[in-house]
């Protein structure tokens, strides 16, 4: 039986290099892998873009989302060829729920006061607001257990998220119709682990806990690969 394609969706304040340690293992296992650049401009726009990437893939897909990428796959995951969803320290939104609403159920993480806001131009409209993480504080909040040299690189190469994405309601929740797996990074200081756990448990998905910072794919690639493999075997 041919292996499903693994589509790796990165989160906010990151790019596809978040998956740098996971991709070689998946390729060695014989999985086709696609790790697209996500625009990070709006939830529905980002989901539409990822859905278009998924649609172009001829066979079955395991859709993996990290952090904000979890919200993206919650919406994009309804594509017909998606066999399973894997959430990594992510937001499993309910239909009609926004990131802000889900997050607001629990106490703020350390991220809240490390965010930096800057305007960016939108053609023919008012300026938008770019949100990023203070470069100095990025390593401790995002990547406490990642190689410190690499953590500083990641801090300066982060892709910001447009602020409007926080308020957008998810039009659909793919975990209702697709088998799902969720990983809680229990030492996460970017997203309160309770937010991750709550979303997964509400969805009734198989949940695993890993003692890790937010960037679990770089801190514990083996555990992430094990979970993706499990999803590919069972979905």
């Amino acid at each position: 039986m041919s292996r499903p394609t693994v589509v790796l969706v990165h989160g906010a304040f990151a790019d596809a290099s978040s998956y740098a340690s996971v991709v070689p293992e998946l390729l060695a296992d014989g999985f086709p892998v696609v790790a697209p650049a996500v625009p990070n401009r709006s939830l529905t726009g980002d989901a539409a873009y990822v859905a278009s990437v998924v649609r172009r893939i001829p066979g079955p897909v395991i859709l993996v989302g990290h952090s904000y990428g979890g919200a993206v796959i919650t919406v994009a995951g309804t594509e017909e060829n998606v066999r399973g969803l894997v959430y990594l320290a992510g937001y499993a939104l309910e239909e009609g729920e926004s990131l802000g609403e889900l997050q607001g159920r629990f106490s703020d993480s350390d991220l809240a006061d490390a965010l930096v806001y800057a305007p960016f131009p939108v053609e023919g409209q008012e300026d938008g607001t770019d949100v990023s993480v203070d470069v100095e504080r990025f390593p401790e909040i995002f990547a406490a257990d990642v190689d410190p040299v690499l953590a500083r690189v990641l801090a300066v190469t982060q892709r910001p998220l447009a602020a409007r994405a926080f308020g957008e309601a998810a039009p659909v929740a793919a975990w209702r119709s697709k088998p799902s797996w969720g990983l809680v990074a229990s030492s996460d200081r970017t997203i309160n682990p309770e937010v991750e756990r709550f979303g997964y448990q509400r969805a009734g998905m198989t949940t695993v806990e890993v003692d890790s910072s937010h960037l679990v794919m770089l801190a514990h690639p083996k555990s992430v690969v094990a979970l993706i493999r499990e999803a590919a075997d069972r979905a």
Partner: protein
Amino acid sequence: MAATTFGEYLRRLRQDAGLTLEELAEASGLSPRGIGNLERGHRTTPQRGTVAALALGLKLDDEARARLASAAREGRAPDPAPRPADGLPRSVEDFVGRQKELARLRSVAAAAGSGPAPVVALSGPPGAGKTSLALHAARLLAPSFPGGRIMLDLRGLDASPPEPATLMAQVLRAAGVPDGELAKAGPDGQPGLYRRTLAARPFLVVLDNAAGESQVRPLLPGAGPSMVLVTSRRILSGLEGVDRLMLDELPAGDAQALLAGIMGRERAAAEPEQVARLAALCGRLPLALRVAGCWLATRTGWTVERYADRLAVEERRLTMLAAGDVRVGAAFGLSYRRLTPEAARLFRLLSLVPGSGVGTAVAAHLLGGDVPAAEDALEELVEMGLLGTDGSRYRLHDLLRLFARARLAEEDGEEAARAAAAGLWRWLLRTAVLAGRWFEPDHGAPARQPGLVRLGTAEEARTWLQEEGDTWLGAFRATAAAGEDATVVDVAEAMHWFSDQWMFWGHWPEVFRTAAEAAQRLGDPLLEATQLNYCAWALLVCEHRPRDSVAWSSRARAAALRAGDPGQTGWSHLYSAWALGKTGSHDEAAEHNRLAARYLAEAGDVHGGLQAAAAHGLALIEAGRYEAAVGAHRAALADLDGQAGRIEPHIAAVSRINLMMGLGRSHAALGNWPEATRCLDQGVDLCRRSPNPGLESRVLIQLARACAAAGAGERVREAYARCASLEQADPVCREEARAYLAAADREAEPAARNG
């Protein structure tokens, strides 16, 4: 795994007290060498003064001192004192890190008792420290689970990991459920008994190294105060309502702390960058870190830098061992290459030992029979972190086993490896046969001691067979697969009587079925019939599957008739009768019993004839034919007297008691009270002389009922009181006795108040 010799008992006491040989020597004023010799059994009978000095050094209280003294007199360990079941092996003392996971486990444990019993699955690659974490957590959580703690090795990587039913029986026995109750529950009732037991009191069950969901699922309790911890390489996402924790390498800080804890904190503090480098070279994998730390701990002259340099070279030199997705060959390779030749050889050969642990005797066999050399080599391997131990048995981690097996193939060659394996299997099975024969009516002590294993008493033989059960079963399977049919049949034959003493092992049907197939290939219908009969017995008695059993006793009968052997024909009828009786087919059972008695008499089989006669009597009681039952029991007792010298004494004693009880019951049913009480009194008396409290409780129940029916109220109370006071009573009987006494007390109470 109870200590059985004085030496092992002493070693356990010393380890429990947290003393090294040297420390105990200092505290007791004895020489370390002398204590070592006692522990190794080189000297078995210490002087009284030595025992006193040891007791002083161990700081034993009076009771423990008396136990040590009596153990010394008998040269063996005393029977274990009753205590809450703690079936946990020793955990590592220098456990480091995993604070998040431990916090999670604590909070899960705190929720036990409200709603479904919590289950936590720890998954991760080999060497990540899943078992260490589970054991450490079990120790920390022990106060929340006063009902007991037990760890079971599920041997997930084995070709045939243990079945859930076998594991369930192990937990139940550890929880103190008597064999009799297990037997009564049978395979259908066991899951219910398991759930009730774990619901009744808080138990912590650790299921280590699970193969998959299907092995674990039946062992999860429903609701209640107990908790289950599972470790597995797999995520086990098929299990529902489970908390899952994934482990892989330690965070850098914890990895360095683990190294520092083993090698010494001051030393680590002197070279912090090198410790960090070493942790990275070990992939921050706990197993590799432990091996590296042990290396440094035993070589105080080395700097961490020098060792890390060596490790870096080794990593390039060695073809990396890829086991699963972990590559940790370098630390293993370096430590392995610095072992003494004996220890290195033993390490390689240990990869051949089937099962989950190894005792000293097996190691000594692998080193050509040299016990002191084996003990030294085992201790060296433990010191180097290449072998785990719980005091008397040793465990090779799966990853290290793969490494050792690869070394064996490369250094000794596949052919030598195969020859060594075959030699090990032959020795294991030869020892098993000698040990098993202790329990045969015609054998007893082996004429020739096998040397490495002490089989001087039946108890020693039993201990070896049970402790090395996995090991010799592995050898048995391999030997069957290799087509050595004669050996297979010999082993099974030697186990026939022993199997009766270890009914819930879970592998008897397999053993006897395998032997029956071997006998068939050998073209020996008599042997085949014998083994088929044993198989029928095992299915009936060990697994409570009477309907399946009948199929096997029928096959046995066909083979026995082909062989023209009245003895096995008789036994097959006996087993068929027994099984059919259990299914309620008393008419068919009676017919089989009649034929059994006829064939066995024809064969001159005294033991079988005895059983047939007893079964015949019971069948008549079942059928309500009490007059005939009195006659049958009387005839059987007369036969027993006539053959006194030909029957093994303890079999004769048990048979006499059972026949007396049957006779008493028959008389009671006919209303012959004086005869009934006389027979039952005599039965009780025989039980006390044996002593056999289990059987005594059963006779006492019959006596109490007979006295009640005869209106002898005083004697009813006396019999029930005695029954309730027997520590090893059949639990069903004890229950009946206690219920009667409680009811009687309630009735007596108002009268007492009025008076």
